[in-house]
């Protein structure tokens, strides 16, 4: 990705939609791909796969723990299973199964959480996953991906299908801006520098990446040169890019649609502490949200470019 290109940020597909379409395409390419869903195929978008390969989609009903374990059994017998539900359900109700049946024996299961974060909107806090990255990162052997747009999601799903080992992919409900040109290639564990900059680095993941790009544009108008990093791979995290950003720009802002005390922020802080300590400000969630439209919630809970830019000004004030 060339640095300092101007981004149109035109609204594209939801990342769950990109997941569903990519999965259906993969179904043609790899006969071993099978899918488990827990009565949400129309929401997780595994419905695209179900329409083409009904015999390879296993409807588990509203029973996420069993779904994860059925997936583990399919994987142990040589299949490449993707199991999907809302992140809020698969990562919590399925967590023990993910821990003992998938992470511990290093089983080749792919878990796709949809409707992550508060941007699910009107359904409210019981359906909102604010801790899924923390849970996924707590599992040894798991690779944890959090794509920012439809292009990155297609790559993430295809990478997961090829990779032998457990993977968690975080996707969202709402349409998000397209950042990457179609067919862009990514490298696992390597952050993408979307905007180059020298004064401060905005580190973001998921739908907040587009907000970070907009924040960098706002800051540019104030004479502040902000670098933007898209962390599409939460685990393993790109310590090298974070350390370099901390060394070269001297200040970091981390922005995520996740609890700030357990998500990307703490992982970035750890990476910076290990490489090049620098002041960091954190933009994210601190409590359960509520029902409203996704846009209203992203405004109210501070997930916008304005919030990230404000955090950049705060961290610059702390920068020696």
């Amino acid at each position: 990705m060339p640095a300092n290109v101007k981004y149109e940020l035109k609204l594209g597909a939801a990342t769950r939609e990109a997941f569903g379409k990519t999965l259906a395409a993969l179904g043609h390419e790899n006969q071993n791909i099978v899918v488990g869903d827990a009565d949400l195929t129309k929401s997780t978008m595994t419905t695209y796969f179900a329409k083409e390969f009904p015999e390879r989609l296993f409807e588990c009903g509203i029973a996420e723990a069993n779904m994860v374990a059925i997936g583990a059994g399919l994987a142990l017998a040589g299949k490449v299973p993707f199991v999907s539900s809302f992140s809020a359900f698969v990562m919590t109700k399925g967590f023990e199964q993910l821990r003992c049946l998938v992470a511990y024996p290093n089983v080749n299961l792919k878990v796709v959480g949809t409707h992550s974060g508060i941007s699910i909107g009107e359904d409210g806090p019981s359906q909102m996953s604010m801790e899924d990255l923390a849970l996924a990162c707590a599992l040894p052997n798991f690779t944890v991906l959090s794509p920012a747009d439809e292009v990155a999601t297609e790559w993430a799903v295809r990478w997961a299908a090829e990779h032998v080992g457990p993977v968690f992919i975080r996707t969202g409900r709402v349409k998000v801006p397209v950042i990457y040109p179609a067919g862009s290639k990514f490298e696992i564990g390597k952050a993408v520098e979307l905007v180059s900059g020298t004064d401060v680095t905005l580190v973001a993941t998921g739908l907040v990446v587009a907000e970070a790009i907009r924040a960098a544009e706002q800051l540019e108008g104030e004479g502040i040169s902000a670098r933007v990093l898209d962390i599409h791979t939460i685990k393993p995290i790109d310590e090298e890019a974070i350390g370099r950003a901390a060394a070269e720009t001297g200040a970091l802002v981390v922005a995520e649609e996740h609890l700030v005390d357990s998500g990307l922020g703490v992982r970035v802080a750890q990476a910076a502490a290990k490489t090049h300590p620098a002041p960091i400000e954190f933009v994210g969630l601190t409590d359960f949200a509520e029902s409203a439209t996704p846009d209203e919630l992203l405004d109210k809970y501070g997930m916008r470019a304005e919030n990230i830019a404000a955090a950049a000004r705060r961290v610059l004030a702390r920068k020696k």
Partner: protein
Amino acid sequence: MQRTQNPSELSSIARQIRRHIVTMITAAKSGHPGGSLSAVELLVTLYWDVLRHDPANPKWPERDRFILSKGHAAPVLYSVMAECGYTPVETLNTLRKLGSIYQGHPDVRFIPALEASTGSLGEGLSLALGMGLAAKLDKSPSRAYVVLGDGEIQEGQIWEAAMFGAFHKVDNVCAIVDYNGIQLDGFVKDILDLSPLAEKWRSFGWHTLEIDGHDIPAIQKAFAEAAATKGKPTCIVAHTVKGKGVSFMENNPKWHGVAPKPEELELALKELA
């Protein structure tokens, strides 16, 4: 290994397995003798007569799968796998010690021939069903067998899996409940009663049999009936005795998770001579 269908030969193998179990748990100074001893005839009949498996080729794709969902009964599985030739017999007494392949609960990282790592209760039935589905997709004759503890099936996931197995007609899966009636805190009927257990499985859509889980010909007949049953999975409710074969351990909750002392081992081995 020498396969056999002869009940008296299977019975003599079972006696040898019981000797291994009490000896290795005594050496480990911890472990679960009661629920290991109750499942001996079930596993011996499976491994020497029923399962299509090959210790020389453990990853043969069309093999039958066995999962010990009640992973704390690992000593019975280790003894059986060792006698079959998957793992060394001479190191069974390293059970639970640092560096041993015989971990406290079955662990595929240490014994790749195991079908699954187990230990957290309530999960093995789902694994077996996943394996059964994979075999169906592959048009493989492979069947999956899973031994469940009776206390274990208090876990909700078992009943999620039971619904799933019947609904999806996973008829290449056979679950066996080792119904020895005792769990850690006491008798199952006093902790959280399961009865009427066979009726529960039937109402969940499983072909259900009740047998004496120490009667080898009855076990053989039940597995044959399971294999012949099409359109639904089979559950064998095997009535067993916890601690079976060692008089002072039989039907005594104390022996769920306590190792014998050396003098108790001596008495046990006399009874198992």
